[in-house]
């Protein structure tokens, strides 16, 4: 008779899973690429930490001032700030979150309580939650220093506010997860996130418009805000300062009710996951016949002028582009940003007129910014190949053809985007002078071609697989990101120097001439690099295949 394993206690299950996470992390660090990544992450954590630490002082000071002066509406605002940051920022930071799916553990006899606890614990592991907890602690310290008598009530309110935020964030996340299970939905939501980020640019015009008074419907809504968690928390602390214990209790009960309601919903979501909720996508529907496809595919075009392998890569990459909603959204951004920036800084704007920003200055700066955005994917150009990368090594072709195809496709997209953006710029803020237009175009060629040579190298040296239609864990490797930024800073410095020198010397055609020389040099360097990269690809093939075939 076979044995049956005994029951494992709740703390033991948590301990085992924590041990598993630690082992996974430790094993990941055995790989050189992961160690480079870790260095990148540590840098990011260091700078993120500085921001959090700096803002902690602001929260400390805000809470201290608010309590010591009796202006508790500022305390409510601080609570609002933390709520907004905690609930919204983690969506934007999705790419840096934990990639471990704890639902995989469901195959084991995991208790529902352990599953729920783990789900909550993961909520505390992201940047937004950690930063918010730091700021809540800073607020607690500031308010306590201002009035030590309120410390017990304050602590209760803060703990309840923290729990409420934690459960609400996990609830949102589990709903997102359900929504994001479908690729198209993921792409739509990602697009909305991007558009929301961009829309932040409109905050200033809105403030300018409504600075003398809010619309009446907003004023009618204000009393209801006192039932929101930040208001309950702020009023609870205010009541503690005034010695109104009923106010403290009502604030705490209100927050407790919110936490209870969110927890109940969260328990239901987690219970569905615990029972094995299947969120994967269904099969794609059947479509027209093969003959139609054959005719479409048999059409010849300009690509036939290229070697067949290069043309095949260009075609394949174009198809991948049209099937990748995230990339498509990224391509909408440049013209959109041109519209937004030109709205803010167009010639009509007083700040622009006062500071003398002309199309001749705005035009190259804006184009440089757009190139910076559009070039980043080139630094990990095999990201979406997946297992297909093996085909590049088994097929009878050299890697120079693959790079040529990929770079050609990327250049085509950039040329389209740049032309569109230049047209919008010309329409919004006016045409730059002919020498500046020429200089900008030639500078773009110099910058793009130069970057391709280095980006091809980082694509081989720091490959990272990216999934179509996924948000979480989708980021290039630290090595590629840092090299990319470094190269772009250097190129931006060179271009700025040439433009400034040309203007300072009063010689408008100096810049186009200098950039033409640089562009020729970068083209020569690019073509010279292709053979070296072909050899490097042979050396790096195991790294590449391992990284992309996971």
């Amino acid at each position, binding site marked *: 008779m076979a044995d049956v394993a005994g029951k494992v206690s709740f703390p033991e299950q948590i301990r085992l899973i924590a041990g598993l996470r630690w082992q996974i992390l430790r094993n990941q660090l055995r790989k050189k690429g992961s160690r480079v990544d870790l260095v990148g992450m540590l840098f990011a954590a260091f700078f993120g930490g500085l921001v959090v630490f700096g803002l902690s002082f602001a929260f400390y000071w805000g809470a201290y001032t608010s309590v010591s002066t009796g202006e508790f509406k500022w305390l409510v605002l601080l609570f609002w700030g933390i709520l907004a940051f905690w609930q919204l920022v983690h969506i934007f930071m999705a790419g840096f979150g934990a990639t471990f799916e704890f639902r995989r553990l469901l195959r084991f006899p995991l208790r529902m309580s352990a599953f729920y606890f783990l789900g909550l614990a993961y909520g505390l592991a992201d940047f937004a939650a950690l930063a918010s907890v730091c700021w809540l602690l800073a607020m607690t310290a500031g308010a306590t220093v201002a009035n030590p008598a309120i410390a017990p009530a304050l602590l209760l309110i803060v703990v309840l506010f923290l729990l409420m935020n934690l459960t609400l964030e996990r609830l949102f996340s589990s709903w997102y997860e359900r929504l994001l299970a479908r690729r198209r939905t993921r792409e739509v939501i990602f697009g909305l996130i991007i558009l929301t980020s961009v829309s932040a640019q409109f905050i200033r015009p809105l403030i300018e418009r409504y600075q003398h008074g809010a619309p009446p419907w907003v004023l009618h809504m204000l009393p209801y805000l006192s039932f929101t968690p930040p208001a309950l928390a702020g009023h609870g602390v205010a009541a503690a300062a005034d010695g109104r214990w009923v106010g403290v209790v009502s604030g705490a009960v209100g927050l407790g009710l919110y936490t209870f309601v969110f927890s109940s919903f969260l328990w239901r979501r987690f219970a569905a996951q615990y029972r094995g909720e299947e969120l994967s996508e269904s099969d794609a529907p059947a479509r027209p016949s093969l003959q139609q496809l054959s005719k479409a595919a048999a059409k010849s075009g300009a690509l036939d002028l290229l070697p067949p*392998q290069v043309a095949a890569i260009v075609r394949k990459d174009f198809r*991948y582009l049209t099937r990748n909603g995230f990339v498509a959204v990224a391509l909408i951004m440049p013209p959109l940003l041109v519209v937004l920036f030109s709205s803010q800084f167009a010639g009509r704007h007083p700040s622009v007129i006062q500071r003398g920003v002309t199309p001749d200055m705005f035009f190259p700066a804006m184009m440089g910014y757009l190139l910076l955005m559009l070039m980043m994917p080139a630094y990990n150009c095999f990201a979406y190949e*997946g297992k*297909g990368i093996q*085909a590049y090594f088994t097929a009878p072709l050299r890697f120079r053809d693959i790079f040529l195809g990929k770079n050609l496709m990327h250049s085509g997209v950039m040329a389209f985007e740049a032309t569109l953006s230049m047209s919008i710029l010309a329409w919004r803020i006016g045409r730059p002078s002919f020498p500046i237009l020429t200089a900008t175009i030639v500078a773009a060629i110099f910058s793009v071609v130069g970057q391709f040579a280095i980006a091809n190298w980082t694509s081989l040296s720091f490959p990272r697989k990216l999934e*179509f239609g996924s948000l979480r864990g989708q980021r290039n490797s630290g090595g590629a990101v840092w090299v990319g930024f470094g190269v772009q800073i250097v190129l931006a410095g060179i271009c700025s120097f040439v433009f400034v020198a040309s203007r300072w010397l009063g010689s408008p055609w100096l810049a186009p001439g200098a950039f033409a020389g640089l562009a020729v040099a970068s083209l020569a360097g690019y073509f010279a690099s292709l053979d070296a990269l072909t050899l490097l690809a042979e050396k790096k093939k*195991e790294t590449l295949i391992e990284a992309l075939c996971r």
Partner: protein
Amino acid sequence: MTGPAIVTEKLTRRFGNLSAVDAIDLTVAAGQFFGFLGPNGAGKSTTIKMLTGLLAPTSGRMELLGLDFSSHSIEVKRQVGVVPEGMGLFERLTGSEYLNFVGRMYGLDRTTTQQRATELLEFMQLTDRPKAMIADYSHGMQKKLALAAAVIHGPRILFLDEPFEGVDALAAGALKALLGRMTERGVTIFLTSHVLEIVERLCSHVGIIHKGRLVAQGSLEELRAGIASEEGRQTTLEEIFLSIVGQGGADRPQMEELSWLM
């Protein structure tokens, strides 16, 4: 047939201190249907990866169709078809797009590629959902597509790593017939499979690798001749395999150790 299709000399691949493939000398004649066998982790896939250019050998030499692989890799690859371990598909293309892509990568012109892609998709019964992306294919459909891609350019050597895994019986029968026809026309097929019955039925010659070393190589008859069997009964490949790799059961897990399970 002329000279051998595949020759390796002291082919070795090390991962740190581990010799995944340890100085193997392999010879496969042109037109042979060669089965390459071994237990899990024996070095089969590592060998195929080296022979197809997916992995660089640590030392040793490989010659395919009379050409040294290291100095003529492009020429060799042009004449070789591969179904690698992970199939190597571009999952965000449709089946038709993928075959067209592969055909062009192997230098076929557009019309020929298109024609062959259509015929192969029909043969593999992959025409039902022409706009479905490969990512939405079942495992068996992906296997069939990988096989179609491996033969679209009419290779002279075909490397197949577990080609029938996940393929339904109907399609597997058609594939076996196709592979048989290809060997009749002089194509060399190098196949790995854990299903010994398939290897026994298809392959004329077999190589057995164990712990990175080539421990047996020859025709099935030659291998049978080396193994004692009951009178009047032909030794099966499974018995040959167990006899060579398991050394009469010495390496096989002892059931007594799992008494708690029984």
